[in-house]
């Protein structure tokens, strides 16, 4: 607990990286997100928790405009990244997504080689000036995602031939390789064993020194372990948002308390 309070103090003087004000999302008739206000701090891990279908993924996808690709989705409200409105018509979502990377809920490697999967982002963003540099990026990214040892001998093998958990880590490596400023991770550990989970959590902790990380998780323990801030969603609303220690020890809202003690969900 002492530990957590240290982290709390650390967080309080960070700046907001992403600010969301009154975000509403409709999927056709369905009102999936209701009036969400959140400030995601720089160099901080923020956990989104909440029961299934409460809108965690939906909100995450608002933050890098992936909802643009869903024809029925309508996003209202204001979201800023470093003070810039990301829904401004002059903003290029392609550039935004290079800065705000994402690991999806379901692993979705490209049907290309493992190497190509990781190298693709750096290639299209021109992050490597030479083949050697690209190799370097691929290797460090795979190492960060705790996959290097398993695949270093078969980088040319198809990424889709890996196991589910390996694919998920490949997707993490792919997202990390583009060096985003914010990394959105939608249940990155749902298909991983405890060892790989620990490694990914280590990675998240490491990334915190440079980036903001937003992680959606169904594991209270994981949220408590890796995050400094926690947001609890319920039925499309943001119920409570605060320091992770405070949310897990003295939740203000009865629904939060019910969820983290396992009575709703």
């Amino acid at each position: 607990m002492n530990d957590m309070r240290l982290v709390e103090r650390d967080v309080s003087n960070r700046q907001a990286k992403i600010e969301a004000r009154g975000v509403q999302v409709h999927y056709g008739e369905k009102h999936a997100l209701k009036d969400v206000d959140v400030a995601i701090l720089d160099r901080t891990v923020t956990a989104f928790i909440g029961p299934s279908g409460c809108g965690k993924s939906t909100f995450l996808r608002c933050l890098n405009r992936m909802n643009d690709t869903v024809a029925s989705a309508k996003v209202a409200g204001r979201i800023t990244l470093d003070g810039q409105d990301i829904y401004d018509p002059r903003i290029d979502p392609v550039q935004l997504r290079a800065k705000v990377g994402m690991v999806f809920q379901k692993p979705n490697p490209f049907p290309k080689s493992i190497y190509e999967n990781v190298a693709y982002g750096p290639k299209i963003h021109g992050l490597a000036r030479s083949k050697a540099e690209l190799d370097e990026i691929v290797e460090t990214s795979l190492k960060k995602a705790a996959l290097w040892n398993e695949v270093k001998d078969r980088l040319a093998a198809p990424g889709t031939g890996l196991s589910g958990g390996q694919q998920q880590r490949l997707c993490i490596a792919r997202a990390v390789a583009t060096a985003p400023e914010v990394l959105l991770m939608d249940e990155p550990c749902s298909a991983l064993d405890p060892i790989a989970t620990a490694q990914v959590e280590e990675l998240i902790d490491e990334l915190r020194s440079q980036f903001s990380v937003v992680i959606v998780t169904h594991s209270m323990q994981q949220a408590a372990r890796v995050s400094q801030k926690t947001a609890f969603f319920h039925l499309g609303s943001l119920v409570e948002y605060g320091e992770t220690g405070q949310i897990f020890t003295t939740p203000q809202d009865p629904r939060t308390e019910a969820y983290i003690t396992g009575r709703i969900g």
Partner: protein
Amino acid sequence: MTDVTAGAPERARGGSLLEGSARTKRRRAREWRMKAYGIGAIVLSLATLFVMLATILMDGVSAFRQATITFPVTVDAVIVDKAGNRNPEEMAKVTTIGYKRLLSQAFVAHLAAEGIDTAGVPEKDLGDMLSDDGPARLRDRVLADPSLVGQVVEVSVYATGRIDGYLKGRVTRATAERDTNVTPEQLDLADNLVAAGILTMPFNWGFLTGPDASDLRPEASGLGVAIIGSLYMMVLVAIFTVPVGVAASIYLEEFAPKNRLTDLIEVNISNLAAVPSIVFGILGLAIFINFMGLPQSSSLVGALVISLMTLPTIIIATRAAIRAVPPSIREAALGIGASKMQLVFHHVLPLAMPGIMTGTILGLASALGETAPLLLIGMVAFVTNYPAGPFEGGVMDPATALPVQVYSWASRSDPAFIERSSGAIIVLLVFLVIMNVAAILLRRRFERRW
């Protein structure tokens, strides 16, 4: 989950697993019937296909062999080069009539020299056993190489269609009695010639390479012009339709907004695919020939008309292939900041490629068999000159196409053309099979799993 089954009424679960319940038996019976229908349908279609192929093969295979008479000819300078100076321009004044006389005389002399019994066949009838195509070929040969004058050359001349038909079983002595073009004695002589090895049935390259011939000379007619025409058209159709079709599909699938206008375009593309082909023929006649003034009967106009017909098919196939690319791949690419263009060219097209290829080749294959619109733009004309090479404006020259050749031969009166027509169908089928195999191979080659 568990409490639901616990709360549900307890079914009779007794009895051995080896004997099915009444319910399972009914289900099995239904399944069995479904399978039986399926097998029945397949057997029926295979039987029909078999009958069709067998008929075509039986009628058409003989077109690939041709009764040919081989004998030596002395190219007599007195006939072919009256001026005696071996000048091809002056030699060209001698028409095929002169060469016909030359051939007939040489043939008669050869028969006498070989000691073949020509009883009952007057000398004129002997010469008439040779196709009129022979003199023309000999003339071309001599004009191309004047040094042959005065030499003895070995010529292979087609026998007339009747003799050819006799050797293939189409003409009998009974029909010859009633036929003004052949006598039973000529048929007897044909038997002798076969025995002497003068009359043979070699593989008929002329059928694949030669141009069409008139009603009077079925033995000389070939598919050369039709094959060139079809080839030109296929290449042009591919050049016209693939870029346009793929570009249109990519735009409609990936970039176009979903609104009334694009809905309307979609519906119309599907409708265009269902428009009868003859309508496209009328359209082509009006636009390409009457309005734009492109030459009639040319492979260019044929290709344009067929492109119009094939385009909707290709667009529909391509869009289906693009749509089949899993959305998760799109999300993955967009999620790491790929642009629309990069998404399309790096991820969607490679994955859709096998589908696009198959769709395109099948579209081209059906275009290859298209006949009706070509009739309207004049490609059914009787063309005996080869079109020029593809880079010398050959696509503007009159040509025919394989299916049209099938149609025009099938409508001629001489029964010898029935065989030719079926033979042409076999050639067409071979081309179609090659294209379909190519489609399968390409599909295998490009297929990737995800």
